[in-house]
């Protein structure tokens, strides 16, 4: 048992040591930190082997909240799903820790950075290992906090601090759904333990309704939708995705670990964990699938025209997360988790590789100021290409297997499935296009670099390139554990089968399956070729198009003006005066967009309220009296 507890505890000790003694350890803090996660990885492997041998661990340590005969425990559970997540989290975390030694070298917050990273890993492990909703929620909140700390790591950069707050606050909106869902689960099932809750999740229960302000809603549907609100916040789905692109203000290893490989997939993990509940509610499943598909396409279109290298990858992350939800939503839970796994590798790779590019260019992130780098930083170019091929879904790279498994399941999911399949395929085309647009702009063509920058271009040190190569290796090979077509060759799905008893299996028409696969690879290849033609062969085309369809282009470039839309809806539509209240109330400006919109509205209410607080005792007494009169008047309402 001890070794399982050590999985989260080792990073926690790492955090304590790096955090408390960072001042003395200096750069040796990294050794401690890497030791912590590496240890966790070793124990995770051991746990994985145990699970593979059939040992499912589900143990309570003590009861946290005991209310009568109902209790919430602090306990861990390691089943197949957790084991997969443990492997992904600890492995990537280890690699990214190592990479960070090189990347953060010389930063004055070096030991602080590693302390945060360790703390994040700890909470992430708590999240995936919890055996009930509340422990999961502790991890859930914890990773949010660490993400906030890490995004705002370079707090001297104002935009970084703002982005941190935006991430935290948007996530609070999502958490709001999670908490409510959790509460509803508690009152419905009388417990928060996964095993007990899922054991009671029967079709009879799904038939029960609950009165919500006069509308009858299925209780399971309501629970699932509330949980899904939480998932959209954490996993950056419409409409709560706005924080993720801004989160790129953080150091690149953070983007790779938190905003690509692990934390953002927490929502996917949670929905998969609750598969027994979700599969009881068609409505909830459809909402998940449609949200996923729409996000996948929507984010991909934005990704087409972004110029910041990290933002392109950020939007592609949102889009890929959309695919995972699409898979979950049609009942292909193991396909969704499979995509989560492969995505963790190739997206982690892409982020780290982009970090290597940025590192080489002394901090430049604008792709318009890159070009022709393929000869100068060969290793980075090679791994970037592998990552992009995986992202585009080209056979035999990892992304191909997982994405096609999802699309195949979607295709087989009735009429809604067919239309979502079309959406997914369109998204896949765009994915291929923008990921190679990135490659061509960055590594091909003429150099558009500043002279100084060009002079200093250099390949990253081995401490950074070795993790890249390891990730590249897995980006090529990891897909084979989920082989389609051949009976029993999908090791991944077989492994997870006990956790997802409700898995909807794809159709059995192998001919059709192969046909669709070839078709989607062709679609992706078309995207790549088109990107080649536009950005390498005849570079005037994009500009011409942008000119011709300037409306669409600006719309995309401005990310559909969603931030402005939120502003309009929440601010202009309701309040006439647009006073920058939050600027006035302190020097802390709370970010743009949706958050700012709501915040400004509330801030204005707050300012108005302040004016009502005049300091005159008699006004206070009058308001009390008014309260008295209204309350007495309520007599005529209630009686």
């Amino acid at each position, binding site marked *: 048992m001890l070794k399982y507890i050590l999985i989260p505890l080792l990073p926690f000790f790492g955090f304590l040591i790096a955090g408390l003694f960072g001042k003395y350890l200096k750069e040796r803090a990294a050794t401690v930190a890497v030791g912590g996660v590496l240890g966790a990885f070793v124990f995770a492997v051991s746990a994985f082997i145990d699970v593979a041998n059939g040992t499912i661990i589900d143990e309570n340590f003590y009861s946290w909240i005991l209310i009568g005969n109902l209790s919430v425990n602090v306990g861990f559970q390691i089943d197949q799903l957790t084991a997969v997540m443990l492997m992904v989290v600890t492995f990537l975390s280890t690699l990214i820790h190592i990479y960070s030694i090189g990347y953060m070298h010389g930063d004055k917050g070096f030991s602080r950075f590693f302390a945060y990273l360790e703390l994040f890993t700890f909470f992430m492990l708590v999240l995936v290992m919890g055996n009930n909703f509340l422990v999961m929620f502790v991890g859930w909140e914890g990773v949010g906090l660490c993400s906030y700390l890490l995004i705002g790591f370079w707090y001297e950069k104002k935009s970084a601090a703002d982005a941190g707050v935006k991430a935290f606050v948007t996530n609070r909106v999502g958490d709001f759904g999670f908490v409510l869902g959790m509460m509803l689960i508690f009152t419905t099932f009388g417990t928060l333990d996964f095993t007990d809750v899922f054991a009671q999740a029967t079709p009879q229960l799904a038939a029960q309704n609950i009165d919500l302000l006069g509308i009858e809603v299925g209780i399971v549907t309501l629970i699932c939708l509330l949980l899904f609100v939480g998932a959209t916040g954490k996993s950056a789905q419409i409409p709560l995705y706005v924080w993720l692109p801004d989160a790129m203000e953080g150091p690149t290893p953070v983007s790779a670990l938190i905003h690509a490989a692990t934390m953002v997939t927490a929502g996917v993990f949670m929905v998969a964990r609750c598969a027994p509940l979700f599969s009881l509610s068609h409505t909830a499943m459809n909402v998940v699938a449609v949200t996923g598909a729409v996000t996948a396409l929507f984010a991909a279109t934005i990704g087409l025209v972004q110029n910041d290298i990290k933002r392109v990858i950020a939007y592609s992350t949102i889009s890929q997360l959309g695919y995972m939800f699409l898979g979950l939503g049609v009942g292909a839970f193991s396909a969704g988790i499979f995509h989560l796994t492969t995505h963790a590798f190739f997206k982690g790779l892409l982020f780290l590789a982009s970090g290597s590019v940025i590192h080489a260019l002394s901090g430049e992130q604008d792709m318009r100021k890159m070009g022709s780098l393929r000869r100068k930083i060969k290793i980075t170019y090679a791994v970037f290409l592998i990552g992009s091929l995986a992202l585009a879904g080209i056979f035999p790279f990892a992304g191909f297997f997982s994405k096609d498994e999802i699309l195949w399941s979607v295709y087989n999911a009735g009429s809604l499935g067919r239309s979502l399949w079309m959406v997914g395929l369109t998204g896949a085309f765009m994915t291929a296009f923008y990921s190679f647009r990135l490659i061509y702009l960055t590594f091909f063509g003429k150099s558009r670099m500043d002279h100084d920058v060009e002079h200093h271009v250099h390949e990253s040190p081995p401490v950074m390139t070795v993790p890249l190569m390891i990730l590249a290796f897995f980006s090529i090979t990891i897909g084979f554990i989920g082989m389609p077509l051949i009976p029993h060759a999908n090791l991944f799905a077989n492994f997870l089968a006990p956790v997802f008893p409700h898995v909807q299996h794809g159709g059995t028409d192998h001919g059709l399956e192969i046909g669709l696969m070839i078709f989607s690879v062709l679609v992706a290849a078309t995207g790549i070729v088109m990107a080649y033609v536009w950005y390498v062969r005849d570079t005037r085309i994009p500009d011409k198009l942008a000119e011709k369809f300037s409306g669409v282009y600006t719309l995309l470039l401005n990310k559909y003006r969603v931030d402005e839309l939120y502003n309009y809806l929440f601010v202009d539509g309701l309040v006439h005066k647009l006073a920058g209240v939050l600027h006035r109330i302190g020097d802390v400006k709370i970010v743009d967009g949706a958050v700012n919109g709501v915040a400004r509205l509330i801030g204005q209410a707050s300012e108005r309220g302040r004016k009502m607080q005049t*300091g005159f005792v*008699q006004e206070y*007494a009058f308001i009390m009296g008014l309260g008295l009169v209204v309350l007495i008047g309520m007599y005529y309402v209630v009686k």
Partner: protein
Amino acid sequence: MIPLSWYVLLSAALFTIGVVGVLTRRNVFIILMSIELMLNAANINLVAFSHYLQNLTGQIFVIFVITVAAAEAAVALALIILLARNRGTVYVDEFNIMKG
């Protein structure tokens, strides 16, 4: 035989006058006196009920109310003296350093 409701109406009137006094007058003394009016309204109620209920509790309550009123008046007047000394005014609407 006086109906009980007469007493209650009298006390309601006194209570209301007290409330209006608290809410309108600027002089803090008169506000305090208005509060005394409200307390007296409650006292009339208590004594009247006590009488009609054949029950002494109401009267005892009144004794306590008067006691508390005395103590409260002492503290209030002390604070007013302080304010008059420090701020030179006894108008409540000029006690407004703290607001917002």
